[in-house]
């Protein structure tokens, strides 16, 4: 795909919006954490996320698939995401370098890849193996 056609593609701009939004999220999380403790940050964060969920619900005309399994996994996702968010706010509040903490915590796909191999019996690609090696190197460097 040429650069020009990528720049015309909607998905590219949505992806860029995602990167900028998540960058803003991390910075705002740090700024808020200077004063507000982790639990209160996560409490407020949840109310911030609510309008987006409501907008999606309206866009879908309140029609949600009735799959108990799907709903269970997604709600469990929320609970665990919240726990992770809480720990992220605590990490920012601890005063460590924001760029380092953001980069280190963004390494979570490393755990997903390992779990997918162990639980879903997916096979590691060589790209993922190289990725795991870089993740390991990053963690060792951060712990120096």
């Amino acid at each position, binding site marked *: 795909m040429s650069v020009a056609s990528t720049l015309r593609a909607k*998905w590219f701009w*949505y*992806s860029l*919006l995602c*990167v*900028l*939004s*998540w960058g*803003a*999220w*991390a910075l705002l*999380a740090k*700024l808020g954490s*200077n004063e507000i403790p982790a*639990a209160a940050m996560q*409490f*407020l964060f*949840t109310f*911030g*996320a*609510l309008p*987006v*969920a409501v907008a*999606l619900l309206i866009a*879908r005309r309140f029609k*949600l698939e009735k*799959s108990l399994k*799907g709903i269970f996994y*997604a*709600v469990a996702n*929320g609970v*665990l*995401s*919240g*726990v*992770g968010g*809480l720990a992220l706010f*605590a990490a920012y509040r601890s005063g460590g370098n*924001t*760029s*380092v903490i*953001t*980069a*280190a915590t*963004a*390494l*979570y796909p*490393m755990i*997903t890849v*390992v*779990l997918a191999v162990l*639980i*879903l019996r997916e096979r590691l690609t060589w790209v993922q193996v*190289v990725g*795991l090696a*870089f*993740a390991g190197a*990053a963690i060792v460097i*951060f*712990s120096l």
Partner: protein
Amino acid sequence: MHLPPWFWFAAVVLISWGVVGLLQKLSTNYISAESSLIWLVVGFFLLQPVLYPGKVLFGYSARSLVWALLSGVFNALGAWALFAAMKNGGKASIVAPLTALYPLVVVLVAPVVLHESINRTQGLGVLCALVAVVLLST
């Protein structure tokens, strides 16, 4: 070896969000990505009674409260944009690693907004982490 305090919090983030990545795969096997985000926010709300900080909440500065709320808005907005990218013809194998680059925004903006800079060793670590996350998300 002396590990900084943030290291342990980061480990909790890695493990919980690592499991979330797996559950995300499982949930989208049954329901759409948007429904998945809606139910995820329901999951967030299940934690609220435990997190409720009490009246102290009203004692924080308006500025910090706005930042905390906006962090939630932007996080969910980013998740929505990710779904939209995939729906609008973006291949998961390209969109996922591309969007994993959000720490780059922080690295570029932190010196201006937070007056923080990183030293060479930290910079090397961030670089390794960015390469890792791109390769792992493909």
